[in-house]
């Protein structure tokens, strides 16, 4: 009788153990899931803070708020392995200027390439694309290596372009480019924008150094065959 009692007790303990074990395992999954969601949320917040607020604060410093719908600021990062620039954040109060047909930019075209080569580039000599569209296309082709079809696809046909190359934390190599543009050719002078970027040189470098490790990079996917 006592043996049956002991066996029954052991069986119950055994069932209890399995239940506890299962519950613990399920509990671990739930905890992991919660941890993952929090981790994910933290990354989203970091990205949000840096990408949106920082670009917006630069835009405010440049006085975008006064006539916001004519201007845009964009950050591009260079993917060395694939030899292309990728846009990673863009700010404009005009929603028509936020999207593009492409998010991949050649290192041999446009004002991104000019800053990449010389550190700083400014041009407000673009013809009026509304009144002199052919001249605008020709100017962009000649100086910036864009075909007429590519110019046609540009959602924002700016008349002022200013680009600044952002260096790595050692201050040696370029890692990214920031471009300010406007449909108003006289919105800012070359000196104004040059001073603006010189004053923020270190902050821009820190910004990129912080955000660069968590930015998606095509080479990370291609290294894994994806």
């Amino acid at each position, binding site marked *: 009788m006592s043996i049956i009692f002991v066996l029954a007790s052991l069986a119950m303990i055994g069932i209890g153990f399995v239940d506890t074990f299962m519950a613990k395992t399920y509990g671990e999954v739930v905890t992991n899931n919660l941890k993952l969601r929090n981790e994910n949320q933290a990354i989203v917040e970091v990205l949000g803070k840096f990408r949106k607020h920082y670009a917006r604060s630069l835009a405010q410093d440049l006085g975008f708020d006064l006539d916001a719908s004519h201007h845009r600021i964009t950050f591009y990062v260079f993917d060395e392995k694939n030899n292309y620039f990728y846009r990673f954040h863009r700010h404009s109060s005009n929603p028509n200027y936020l999207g593009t047909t492409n998010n991949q930019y050649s290192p041999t075209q446009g004002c991104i390439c000019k800053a990449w080569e010389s550190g700083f580039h400014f041009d407000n000599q673009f013809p009026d694309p509304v009144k002199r569209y052919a001249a605008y296309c020709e100017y962009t082709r000649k100086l910036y290596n864009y075909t007429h079809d590519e110019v046609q696809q540009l959602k924002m046909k700016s008349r002022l372009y200013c680009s600044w190359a952002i260096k790595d934390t050692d201050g040696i190599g370029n890692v990214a480019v920031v471009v300010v543009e406007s449909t108003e050719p006289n919105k800012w002078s070359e000196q104004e924008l040059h001073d603006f970027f010189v004053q923020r040189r270190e902050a821009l470098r820190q910004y990129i150094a912080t955000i660069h490790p968590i930015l998606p990079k095509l080479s990370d996917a*291609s290294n894994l065959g994806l």
Partner: protein
Amino acid sequence: MSNREIIQEVVDVILENDVATGYCHNEDYLKVIVYLSDWKSCLEFQKPITPIRWKHGEIGPEADIDLSNFIRPERLSIKQKISDLWNNFFKLSKAKTQRLKINEEKIVEELMVKLSEMPLSEVYRLANSTFPMITTSTDDKLKLREFSNRYKHSHLKATLSFVEHG
């Protein structure tokens, strides 16, 4: 197999191969792995495994279907309990149903091995680093088959440019 059955099979294979962590019971994680499987399949075989329509979401790829409905533990059985001093976990086994094609199943299995050590944030970053995600903006549709053709073309162009300049 119907569209739902294909998705169910893929989810089952993912859960079956999620040996240690149980992360795939997290819908966010599952979604990213299904996306990566579809993308990998397009790169290798010019077609995605599932019929899911993907789009560029706020923080990663978004499916047009709620994948949490496909997490069905009752379809999986405990095949083997694996224990060591600090960890106990189960190896799950999916029911013997209509299987995916061998090469499709292999894609998912190999992906699970590659991603097994990565935290969710890294897996998201990886998904966002794929060609369709990195070349589009929020809310854009991701037609993976078309993107895989474009990717191969642009990759070839970049390689040629590198050889030319290098």
